[in-house]
């Protein structure tokens, strides 16, 4: 009897060891690549930055945060980021699903168009920024040439603050809408066909089918896409870097570019770490609120 329980304890220990040994590699990998940088950043954000050890120096508490929050440039960058998010995200998601809905219909050449849609995603963001810089060039860019033929312009895409923001959003939309089209196409294909046939027999027209059947069925996918895109958009950096470098003035200076500038140009690592932590917390809170809201929305349908 006693022998039995001892065997059992041993067996359980061996089982536990096996489990942990299987999990260990990924745990270590996650700790090294994810947890360490985060804690390193948090550590620096509460300290002075010691350039000789390239690590945290003296503990200064909330001082870095105070300085950041009192810096009008931080608030400006935050505002620019929010403007970009509020315009770009709904635009991309709406456009993505609309295009998917259209190219989902049976027509010749559909496969070709689908293939073409992949291209923007595989172009490196910096290259995309460069290409669009040329397209939007005020003097010899294609865009102004095209606009001129319908008597608009010439527009100073990178000189005017509002137009520069528009340019960034256009480039970002060009790059990311295909990704949403791809997800939306898969979602549309996965929708049950017979429900739409039932709607057809029930007399639903195109609009009713879209509004009363397709959209409610797509709500979970739309919200999921929104979250994925939102998490990507918060990190917006590369396109701005290549296309406008935050200009003109600070009109397109998104937070990440500002953080990058502060850290690696002005060498104010402690303050930029504080900003990075603020962005992290803000993102987490907003994502939480968004997920909560979307779950509510899903329940309504």
């Amino acid at each position, binding site marked *: 009897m006693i022998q039995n329980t001892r065997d059992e304890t041993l067996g359980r220990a061996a089982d536990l060891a096996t489990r942990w040994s299987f999990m260990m590699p990924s745990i270590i990998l996650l700790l090294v690549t994810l947890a360490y940088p985060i804690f390193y950043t948090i550590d620096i954000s509460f300290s002075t930055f010691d350039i000789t050890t390239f690590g945290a120096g003296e503990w200064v508490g909330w001082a870095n945060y105070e300085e950041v929050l009192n810096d009008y440039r931080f608030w400006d960058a935050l505002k620019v980021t929010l403007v970009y998010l509020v315009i770009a995200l709904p635009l991309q998601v709406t456009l993505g699903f609309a295009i998917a809905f259209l190219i989902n219909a049976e027509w010749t050449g559909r496969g070709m168009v689908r293939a073409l849609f992949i291209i923007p995603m595989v172009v490196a963001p910096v290259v995309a920024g460069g290409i669009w810089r040329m397209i939007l060039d005020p003097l010899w860019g294609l865009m102004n040439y095209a606009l001129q033929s319908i008597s608009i312009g010439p527009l100073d895409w990178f000189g005017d603050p509002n137009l520069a923001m528009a340019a960034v959003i256009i480039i970002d939309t060009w790059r990311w809408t295909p990704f949403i089209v791809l997800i939306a196409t898969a979602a549309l294909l996965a929708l049950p066909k017979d429900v739409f*046939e*039932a709607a*057809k*027999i*029930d*007399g639903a027209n195109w609009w*009713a089918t879209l509004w009363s059947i397709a959209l409610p*069925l797509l709500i979970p996918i739309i919200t999921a896409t929104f979250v994925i895109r939102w998490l990507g958009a918060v990190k917006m950096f590369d396109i701005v870097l290549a296309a406008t470098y935050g200009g003109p003035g600070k009109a397109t200076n998104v937070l990440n570019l500002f953080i990058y500038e502060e850290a690696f140009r002005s060498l104010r690592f402690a303050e930029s770490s504080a900003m990075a932590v603020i962005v992290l917390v803000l993102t987490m809170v907003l994502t939480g609120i968004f997920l909560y809201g979307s779950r509510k929305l899903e329940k309504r349908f």
Partner: protein
Amino acid sequence: MGTVDIRNVRKSYGNVEVLHGVSLHIEDGEFVALVGPSGCGKSTLLRMIAGLEDVTAGDIVIGDRVVNHVAPKDRNIAMVFQNYALYPHMNVRDNMGFALRQRRTPKPEIENRVNSAARILGLEHLLDRKPRALSGGQRQRVAMGRAIVREPNVFLFDEPLSNLDAKLRVQMRSEIKELHQRLGTTTVYVTHDQIEAMTLADRVVVMNGGVIEQQGPPLELYDNPASRFVAAFIGSPPMNFIEGTVIDASALCLDDGTKLQLPMTDLASQTRVTIGVRPEHFELSSAGWPATVSIVEPTGSETQITARIGGQIVRVLIRGRTFVRPGEVIHLTVPADFVHIFDDDGAHGIQVGTRGAKKYA
């Protein structure tokens, strides 16, 4: 008027023709079952009546109107789908009222019609539930309710019971039959289950390979199958087939040399034929076709015996109980009226000796 007239209808997908000219007239109030193996074109035909598939050639007439190019919603039909096709985000009430809302029917009338359909189907207590909170049988009932509410001229059912378990299927089968008797609406019902077709329909249409093999009242098909295919398809357990060559007008020589005396005397000698006998029409006797018993399966009310006649397997259904044992040789006789003879033309063998009808005439 709920008549449906299908006139020489063909359907092709690209170069592949799946319906090769089907003609069928359905009377007002009639319950017609389209039955056949998968791929025989029965669902395609139903979907063409519904307007979900184009008509390649021929005409489909509902009432007195050719509907080939009429949109599904304007055909005044209602369809019940195999997977129910309920709108998952709407509750039962909204599911049933959707079609009426699309037609801008006044709210109180929608309410009335949904409630009365719910009453007929016993769904009153489920009206506020979403489809996912319903059992399979309840979903099926909601799908039928959605059809009833529209008060259509024709009901179309596309294998509505195949997703239900056996017990529920039998129950829903009687509910559908009761519903039809109560409403008297023309019904076209597609199924691959011959029992469903036999029990429900006024007329059974057996399809195979894109053509109608035979149509008629259920028992007519059972008694007088026009072809070997229909004979094999209708009836459970299926009809036995014994192949051989006729020698001297009333005897059959099987491939292994066994000779069977036939109860008829008018067959052309030296022709290849297939003899068809339903399991329930065999009788045990002291003289007759010798068969070696291999399996005996008693079910209480009847006993199924599997035996071999000259190397060919036959199933025999005996009412009540029997004390036959495996390995034993039994003798089987069949009254002449129950012997079907098909010419030897593959699965489409045509009945040449029609005897069954006399028995019931």
